[in-house]
Structures are given as C-alpha cells and as structure tokens.
C-alpha cells in the first residue's frame, strides 16, 4: 500500500535541493484541446504522452494545460504551443507518437514539426 510517508520523503528531498524553478520568461505553454470533440478524437493518450515525455526529460520550463474547444473539431486532437517571442504553433490530428516527437523536436530543440501543423494539414 502506498503510504503518505513516501510523500513526506519527496518533500524532504525537494527541500534539500536548491530550487531552480525560476518564474522565468522562457516558460513554454502547451495547450491540449480537451472538450468533447478532442476527447472523442483521442486527446487523452496525446496528453498522457506529452506529460510522460516532459517528465522523462525533466523539462522545467513547460506548462501543460487543458483547454476547451477552439472551434476546429475536424482537426482534433489539437495541441497548441505558445513560446515567448514566437508565433503560436497549432498541431492538428495528433497521436501519442506525434506528441512525443513534438516534445523532442519543438520543446527541447526548438524546431517546429511543420508537417504536423495546421498549415500543412488544412486543405
């Protein structure tokens, strides 16, 4: 059985580490469309994949939030990436595999995965 003492240990460990969590300007926001349309199209595995990959890579400057329907239901699951000083990037028809590549290429290395964006998919 998981015990609350383990959480206490996590807290102690965090206290010992010097906090590097600065309220920085380079914070990247990732928004995942989680309205009925997004969820029905498969947004949950996409969101899980993004969270897992961010956690695996220990990215501290990324905030992932859920958002409602942004009005392009036919392109769901939709993921938006808002990085300071850059244009917003809208990824469409995402899958868990595409999401992992998006985290690695875009969030880690700063290269937009153009082939997954709405510009490359809207016809």
């Amino acid at each position: 059985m998981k015990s609350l003492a383990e959480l206490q240990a996590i807290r102690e460990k965090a206290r010992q580490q010097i906090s590097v969590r600065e309220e920085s300007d380079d914070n990247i926001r990732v928004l995942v469309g989680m309205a009925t349309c997004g969820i029905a199209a498969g947004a949950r595995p996409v969101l899980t994949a993004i969270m897992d990959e961010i956690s695996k890579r220990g990215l501290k400057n990324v905030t992932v939030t859920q958002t409602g329907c942004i009005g392009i239901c036919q392109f769901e699951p939709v993921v938006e990436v808002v990085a300071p000083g850059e244009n917003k990037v809208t990824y469409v028809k995402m899958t868990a595999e595409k999401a992992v590549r998006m985290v690695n290429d875009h969030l880690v290395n700063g290269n937009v995965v153009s082939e997954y964006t709405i510009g490359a998919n809207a016809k």
Partner: protein
Amino acid sequence: MQELSLNIMDIAQNSIVAGATLITIHAACHGDRLAVEISDNGKGMSEEQLAHVTDPFFTTRTTRKVGLGVPLFKMQAELTGGMFSIDSQTGIGTHLKAEFVTSHVDMIPLGDLNQTILLLITCNPDLDFVFIHDTDETTFTLDTRELREVLGGEVPLNDPAVTQWIREALEEGESRC
C-alpha cells in the same frame, strides 16, 4: 466515446470550466450495476440552464450551438437500461449521477479510469480531487487534500515524483470494474 472514463474526463472538464476547486468522482461497481457520480463546488447552473443541459443543441458557449458532453453521457447510461440525473444550484455546485447496467449489450467499457484521474490531478495541480472507487470487495479513496497537507506548499501535485506516487497508488486501487 469509446470508454466511459473518457466521458468522465469530459464531464469533469465542465466542472473545471465552472470554476470548481473541489471535484469528487465516485465510481461504484456492485453486481451488474455501475454508478458514476461527479460533484463539484463550481458556479452551478440556473434552473433554465439545468432544464436544457441534456439537450445536445444547448450550450452556454457563444462560439457554437451544440454541447454534447452531458447528452452523450446520459444516452450511454440510458442505452444500458440505467438512469441519469443532474442537480445544480447557482453558487453551490453541480451533482450528476449516471447508472449503468454492465451486463447490457450496449454497455461500453469503463476503460482506463486511472489515466483520467491522473491527468485531471496533474494537469490541474491547483484544484482538489476526491476519487472514490467501490467494488463488492474493496473501497479505494484518493483525496488530493490529504496529499497536499503532507507536501505542504513546497512540492506541487504535478511534481514528477508525486505524479509517480499517484500513478502507483491508483494502480494499487485498480479502478476497473
């Protein structure tokens, strides 16, 4: 929707949008009955909104004219011979209950409820969730207020180590019917 846990995520999303700070999700499996209750302390709905909430062509959004989340959940419960009810009071919150007959041919699986709960908690670290899962043999409860008390204000609920703890705790609770 392919599984009920996705509907539950969708409904909980409504509570988040309604400004709730505490959302309770209760799944109870007894015999061939599954009851799902979701309550929140959000802004609630007026009588007029409540009267229309199960109408797919009613929504409070101004961007479009359909709202499918609640009607779909209701339909899925009623298709199995179950029932659906929703109460709400402005300024107090909303409570919704759906009952399913799990042996019915039109019953869709509950699915991965753990993933829904984990995502709701880790993507909304400032909100509190209470998750209760009952079966004939066991009762499992996860209350983020308890976790928050132990963690203090220093470690957020979406800290990777905490996320892992929650994931393992949910797996131990095994929330499938």
